[in-house]
């Protein structure tokens, strides 16, 4: 059977663009899908042939990522962000409205092959929710007017390039600035200091700053850099983790959109310190709209001698950065899963040790840091470690960018020195009657109104920066249920406790929501939590039960309310199920019945 020529051409073009490297598979799959509207079976065959890898390897990557699909999603694919914040601000209604306008059903390609509408995990637009992606490009701040405009454009089959730009305008919404967001940064200024000071002394400054990773785990950055610097070999890599997938987080979006120089400069400082020549930004697929401007910043930096060979005239200081796009997978925020994804594989966390500092990208020493961490590192290179250490608390130095969303008057990004209280942030963002704040996203901490004096820092409430506010009108059970769905959707499936546990937990929550819950479900959920926490392979599984555990503890009413009417009966009608047996045996005495309340 001759292969479809269009498929062969699309595959050949993309493979050639990536030099026939199988490690570029995820990038190649993205490009092939962009041309063909899907990744058909024929493309898998062609890719396997032209990359000289087994077909199963191509299929396993193509079937792992949410954004890849084997069937066409039409000319326009619209994915609505499905975080609880989007839902609270009208996501369901907006999605229904668009479907009604265009006569389509969610999850089903329209009959004319024009449009596909579905939900997706949080797309990082919590401050301008509800939001969606059209062919991967963000459409923030959706309301009925905008959707009517969108529906019209789709009916007219207008290419995206001709859509009004205002539909795609993503605001920064910076509400409070500190040293990171407030000062103007001159590109190259930090690198000049590094060249004056030397790599060793720069590492000492970073150590003195006590900077800890901003991605959530809070590992000390200087230890990572030092380990990578010590690792043998010429071939080292610097990776910027811009897979900002934790629902409710969007501060990296702002850094990349308006402070990209600071981030790239931080990566270049890291390259100098550890001795790397190659850098990569792992940009989450949801931030596709940022790619062009990031490429423009990179081009400008190359021109200015801040990237490329002989940076700032120093012979031997060679470093450049390329951008890799994700394809919809929360798990790729975990650094070893991210590296797997960079290599073109499904994003499944590796067994560790060895850690990336000795065995990372393609088996070479690799330093992986968060976007904000690199921005901080650039500032430390510029102003010194002592300057940074003077901000924040002793164990949590510097400032932290908080992504504030939900029931607040002024959603957006706020920069605070570490140690700020939850109460302070609530007052600044105009949260009138908050009952709880989910700090750090679904995997983080649910802070109830009784605990608003708690502080944002590694000593108390650690966070990568999400700050979702829920007023007293909100149902905290529904918040937890949304998060349970999120984890079930995002589990990579590698280990038993997380793969099965997240789905079991979601099912229990749905059962409760349907009014069929019993006390037994509560016991089972607690048992599941323990197993997921203690037996899972990575952080996703360890924390996946957190939202349920914490809301159960802090808002027990939200759960008990759902059990009361049931008198703790199982949803299944046990006595009814015995009817057949009674008919067969001809019995109808007391002992042939199960009566609630009797032993």
């Amino acid at each position, binding site marked *: 059977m001759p292969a479809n020529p269009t498929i062969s051409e699309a595959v050949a073009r993309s493979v050639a663009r990536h030099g026939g490297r199988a490690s570029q598979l995820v990038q190649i799959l993205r490009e092939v899908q962009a041309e063909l509207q899907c990744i058909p079976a024929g493309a898998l065959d062609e890719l396997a042939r032209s990359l000289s890898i087994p077909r199963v390897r191509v299929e396993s990557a193509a*079937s792992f990522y949410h954004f890849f699909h084997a069937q066409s999603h039409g000319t326009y694919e619209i994915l609505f962000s499905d975080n609880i914040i989007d839902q609270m601000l009208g996501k369901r209604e907006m999605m229904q409205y668009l479907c009604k306008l265009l006569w389509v059903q969610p999850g089903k390609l329209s009959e004319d092959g024009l449009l596909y509408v579905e939900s997706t995990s949080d797309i990082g637009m919590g401050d301008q929710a509800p939001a969606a992606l059209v062919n991967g490009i963000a459409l923030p701040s959706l309301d009925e007017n905008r959707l009517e405009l969108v529906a019209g454009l789709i009916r007219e089959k207008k290419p995206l390039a001709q859509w009004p730009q205002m539909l795609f305008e993503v605001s920064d919404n910076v509400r409070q600035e500190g040293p990171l967001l407030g000062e103007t940064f001159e590109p190259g200024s930090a690198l000049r200091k590094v060249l004056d000071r030397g790599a060793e002394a720069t590492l000492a400054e970073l150590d003195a700053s006590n900077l800890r990773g901003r991605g959530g785990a809070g590992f000390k950055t200087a230890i990572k850099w030092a380990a990578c610097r010590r690792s043998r070999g010429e071939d080292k890599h610097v990776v910027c983790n811009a897979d900002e997938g934790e629902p409710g987080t969007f501060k990296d979006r702002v850094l990349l959109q308006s402070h990209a120089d600071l981030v790239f400069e931080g990566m270049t400082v890291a390259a100098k310190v550890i001795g790397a020549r190659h850098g990569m930004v792992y940009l989450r697929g949801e931030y596709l709209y940022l790619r062009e401007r990031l490429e423009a910043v990179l081009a400008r930096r190359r021109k200015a001698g801040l990237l490329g060979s002989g940076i700032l005239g120093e012979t031997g200081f060679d470093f450049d950065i390329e951008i890799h796009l994700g394809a919809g997978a929360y798990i790729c925020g975990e650094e070893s899963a991210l590296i797997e994804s960079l290599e073109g594989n499904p994003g499944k966390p590796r067994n560790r040790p060895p850690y990336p500092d000795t065995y990372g990208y393609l088996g070479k020493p690799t330093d992986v840091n968060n976007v904000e961490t690199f921005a901080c590192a650039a500032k430390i290179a510029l102003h010194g470690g002592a300057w940074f250490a003077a901000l924040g608390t002793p164990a949590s130095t510097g400032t932290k960018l908080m992504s504030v969303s939900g029931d607040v008057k002024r959603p957006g990004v706020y920069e605070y020195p570490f140690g700020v209280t939850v109460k302070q942030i609530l007052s600044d963002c105009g949260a009138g009657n908050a009952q709880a704040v989910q700090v750090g996203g679904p995997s983080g901490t649910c802070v109830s109104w009784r605990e608003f004096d708690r502080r944002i820092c590694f000593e108390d409430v650690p966070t990568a920066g999400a700050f979702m506010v829920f007023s007293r009108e909100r149902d905290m059970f529904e918040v937890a249920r949304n998060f349970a769905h999120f984890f079930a959707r995002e589990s990579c*499936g*590698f280990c038993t406790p997380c793969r099965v546990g997240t789905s079991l937990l979601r099912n229990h929550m749905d059962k409760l929501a349907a009014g069929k819950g019993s006390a037994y479900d509560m016991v089972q959920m607690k048992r599941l939590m323990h197993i997921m926490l203690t037996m899972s392979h990575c952080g996703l599984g360890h924390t996946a039960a957190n939202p349920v555990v914490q809301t159960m503890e802090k808002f027990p009413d939200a759960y008990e309310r759902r059990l009361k009417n049931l008198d703790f009966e199982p949803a299944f009608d046990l006595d009814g199920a015995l009817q057949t047996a009674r008919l067969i045996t001809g019995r109808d005495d007391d002992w042939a019945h199960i009566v609630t309340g009797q032993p």
Partner: protein
Amino acid sequence: MSGAGTFTIDGRAIPFSEGDTIMEAATAAGVYIPHLCHQPGFKPHGSCKLCTVSINGRNGAACTVRAQEGMTVLNDTPELNDSRRALTEMLFVEGNHTCPACEKSGECQLQAVGYFVGMMTPRFDHFFPARDLDASHPEVLLDRNRCILCELCVRASREMDGKSVFAIGGRGIRARLIVNSPSGLLGDTNLSARDKAVEVCPVGAILVKRRAYETPIGQRRYDRRPISEVSLADARALREKDHG
């Protein structure tokens, strides 16, 4: 790095050689740690999590963590055994396992581990997923209903048979075993019934056709002795073969 030395499992001294995992050292010393995705001679994988032990107070998979001098490992504790029972139950409910009607009954490691950990019935709700059965291969049957995603066949085919017949496709609870052919059918791959990938399947997912009842039920491997004994004896035999 750590050289040869000893560590303890449940208070018992276990000698190890450089590079040994906890699982390897334990097995050599005659201590059984329940497992499904691990087999002697295979690269550590660590996905089923049944072999989770407490290592100096923190949980880790015995099959992936290397033994170190002076380590304190707990294996046979009520808490760990209860969690292992739960994991086994999870594997049962996510697939469609029908032990009494399964050709592999008595030879199946999932069933045998179920007995070992004292599983009476899965205490979780069954998913009853719709999974494909593939009978296209003349000699081998692939029944995905019974697959536990241990990836032993994936690894055996890639590393030992040099064929890459299998891989895991999809993600999360929808992860499934996929095969290396444009049709997606096993019959269109170069798999042979004599491949290591077929032999290594611990459950009834990959079966050689027409051989299912060569050994009568009741006289099979795990009918006669518990998996804890069989597993250690197999490992001993393998070591003797390698060194003998």
